[in-house]
């Protein structure tokens, strides 16, 4: 059962799902009343093990939300504590209760702040309304996890997803993955920021950007919230260009704010905007993708490619990701964990490239040692930018485990 909106009967709030097909989630229904305290009816797949704990947690959460009198019915399918708290909070809000309060789970410790130009070969999208995917998302080795509040979340579930993602940022250990959140388009995105920014995500993805102003509005809101909460950690921005106009304005958008770390494209919406079909080779979006690569490089940010939507087509993914790299992208989005190793393989430098980079770096060190002003490899002169690229490639290759 999935009731995302308030029922016809005023005041009843429901959130979540239950049923034999559901796992790691629960359904909660709150019917406020005038008196009589809290009456909690609980059914749970894990009743013998955590039945008491769930009941206790429900009481605690409701108390924190200031809900004193209500009939509450919970159907649990093995939801973890941070999900239970989120669903109850959302159901209460939908019942018109607990406005302005949140129940925040304990924080796990997170890795240190994320460098602006860290490796972003793969970013695994996780729908913000499907808690079952959160807890093991980091195990699949993507460079980043994107907790999505936008297109993978049904309009009726935006409020629920916001609370789930907020709780996940606190309670779930994402190991070494960069923590990204894709907020909704403005103005809804500003509400998302209010809940998300205090949890110090590393990157905010801004969808459907068509002007530098849109980026500035987001950047300003983030700065405001960081200020209120005393957060020093950087929060980077990644605008997503998904329309013809967005592509036209690519450089302007890429340079809109010093917080921008990367620029990316949303091919589904872009091709829809052009009124063309998506093809396997991507001829229809070639211009757009090349423009992104160019604008990103001119702006000094990372160009990141879109996702490859056909999960079953491994060959197609392999071909696309190779051509993506050749074009100059530094990574792609992933919609399924199985795509990650293929993407990593494609974005890894080849042995030949590593060899060449090594030689350049060796020549550079040699020149330094000898106090020479000019670096040569064989009979060729090597420019400073070439050396920089070679050093970066070796560092990347080392991070990928390709060299010692």
């Amino acid at each position, binding site marked *: 059962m999935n009731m995302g909106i308030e029922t016809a009967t005023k005041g009843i709030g429901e959130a979540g799902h239950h049923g034999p097909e559901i796992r790691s989630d629960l359904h909660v229904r709150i019917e406020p009343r005038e008196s009589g305290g809290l009456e909690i009816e609980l059914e749970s797949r894990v009743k*013998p*093990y*955590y039945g*008491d*704990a769930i009941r206790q947690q429900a009481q605690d959460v409701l108390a924190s939300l200031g809900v004193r009198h209500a009939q509450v019915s919970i159907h649990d399918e*093995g939801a973890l504590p941070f999900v239970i708290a989120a669903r109850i909070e959302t159901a209460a809000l939908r019942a018109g209760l607990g406005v302005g309060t949140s129940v925040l789970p304990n924080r796990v410790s997170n890795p240190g702040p994320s460098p602006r130009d860290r490796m972003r070969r793969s970013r695994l999208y996780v729908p913000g309304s499907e808690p079952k995917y959160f*807890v093991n998302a980091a*195990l699949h080795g993507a460079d980043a996890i994107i907790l999505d509040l936008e297109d993978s979340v049904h309009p009726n579930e935006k409020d629920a997803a916001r609370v789930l993602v907020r709780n996940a940022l606190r309670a779930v250990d994402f190991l070494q993955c960069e923590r990204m959140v894709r907020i909704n388009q403005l103005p809804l995105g500003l509400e998302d920021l209010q809940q998300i920014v205090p949890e110090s995500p590393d990157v905010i993805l801004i969808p459907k950007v068509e002007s530098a102003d849109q980026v500035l509005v987001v950047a300003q809101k983030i700065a405001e919230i960081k200020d209120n909460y005393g957060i020093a950690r950087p929060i980077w921005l990644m605008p997503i260009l998904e329309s013809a106009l967005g592509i036209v304005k690519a450089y302007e958008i890429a340079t809109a704010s010093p917080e921008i770390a990367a620029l990316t494209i949303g091919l589904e919406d872009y091709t829809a905007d052009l009124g063309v079909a998506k093809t396997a080779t991507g001829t229809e979006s070639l211009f757009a993708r090349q423009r992104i690569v160019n604008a990103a490089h001119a702006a000094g940010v990372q160009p990141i490619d879109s996702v490859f939507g056909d999960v079953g087509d491994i060959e197609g993914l392999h071909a696309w990701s190779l051509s993506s790299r050749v074009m100059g992208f530094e990574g792609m989005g992933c919609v399924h964990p*199985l795509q990650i190793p293929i993407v990593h393989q494609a974005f890894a430098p080849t042995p030949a490239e590593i060899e060449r980079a090594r030689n350049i770096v060796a020549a550079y060190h040699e020149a330094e040692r000898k106090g020479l002003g000019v670096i040569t490899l064989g009979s060729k002169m090597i420019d400073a930018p070439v050396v920089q690229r070679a050093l970066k490639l070796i560092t990347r290759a080392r991070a990928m485990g390709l060299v010692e």
Partner: protein
Amino acid sequence: MTILEKKDFVLNAAGRTVPKTANERRQTPYQGVGKFEAQGSKAASPIRNASGYSENGDKRVADLETALRKCGLRDGMVISSHHHLRDGDRVAMMALEAAERIGVKDIVWFPSASFPSQKGAIDLMASGVVHHLEGSMNGPLGDYCTQGKMRGMGILRSHGGRWQAIQDGEVHIDIAVIAAPTADAFGNCDGSHGKSACGSLGFALADSVYADHVIVVTDNLVPFPCVPWQIQGNNVDYVVTVDSIGDPARIVSGTTQITRSPDRLRIAELVAAFLRDAGIMRNGFSFQAGAGGISLAFISYLKQMMKAAGVKARFVRGGSTKYLVELLEESLTDYILDGQTFDLDGVRSIANNPRHVATSPFTSYNYHGKGNFASLVDAVVLGATEVDLSFNANVVTHSDGRLLHGIGGWQNCLAAGCTILAVPSFRDRIPIIVDEVTSLCGPGELIDVVVTERGIAINPLRQDLIDAVKGSKLPIRSLQEIKAEVERICGGKPRRPKLGDRAVAIIKWIDGTVLDSVWQVT
């Protein structure tokens, strides 16, 4: 059932409380791995005379009821059946229903395993026709037992343990009923051909050799000789033909499916990587994996690694499926030794490929014999419902105490060179790594590696394996560490459901001693 009192129980060598008797028969408590040594001679079936059987070799009778009457079916007799037709089997229930029509009571049903489709046996137990069953139970039959409704005590044995019990005379089979996909009128039969083909018939072999009377039931009679024959007609008393011995769709699957869950795929990949990095995957090696989703995926990953390294296995053991058959057909293994066939590709292969060989619990698993194949295997990949910090494991109940699976070959496979449990670290918020297993099925000293999606734990007793993977990129962690992480994720340790103090079944070890009890759950 006789209600046992406290004095009727002892603490065995594993520290588990077990009854001294079961179904009026004295039991030996578990004494440790390799400690109990059986003596004496094997049981034997009665001597028969060829003059008692038709000269033209036609042993057919009108129907199963007639056959049972001619075998002299009486109250309290033991009727056995095999489970090669799995949830599609019709013959076991046909036999029990015929017993009901004949009017006998207190039959002991001795299947090599029971399935949910055989829940009709519950009514027969309630009405007194069947006294109890000895064999694995799950679903409705499992619940019937754990709720304490069965009149006799359940006895859970491994495949090897069942052979051993029959061979040693611990279980005396009066009448064996053998469902046969193909048979001739003399009683030779086989499972590799016919509309209800199931592959091997190994689970019926001991029954055919040791039972007092043997009835073959087939839906595919062929003129003598039935070739190949896995069951010899010289051990058979009667042959019955029926329209159908089972539902083919539930005997074998059309296709077996690799899991699609990314978490389970990760576990499978880690298992394969472990075998590679520990040096177990090498030319001439051998392995065994089941037919579950993780196992099939594991075979798939291992195959890629074998190809990349140019490695060929000497033999692989199954449950055979399409994935194992591919290994054989692509010359990545010399042989498949097959105890049970799970899909049509397996059936096709065993019927046509001389390198795909049917085994039986005698060759694979029997402990009271001169060795068995299971101990020759370099690596085996198994599942589990629970593991504790001493690497003891459970496979028959979940943490709520309800009977869930049979033991199958699981216990017997623990004899492999490297025993790996491939399990998620938690299922539905329920941690798999526990303080103490609910039911002890496998002693920890035999369990070498636990592979979860959150990391790989190696039993400290296996310093050789720990050394072998030093320097690899595998996520090696202690079992304590994984357990602690899971308990944090799940919001603390789960409560242990309270079990009753009445033993409703016993779990036997591979040598016939009693390893643990299964307690009543209301």
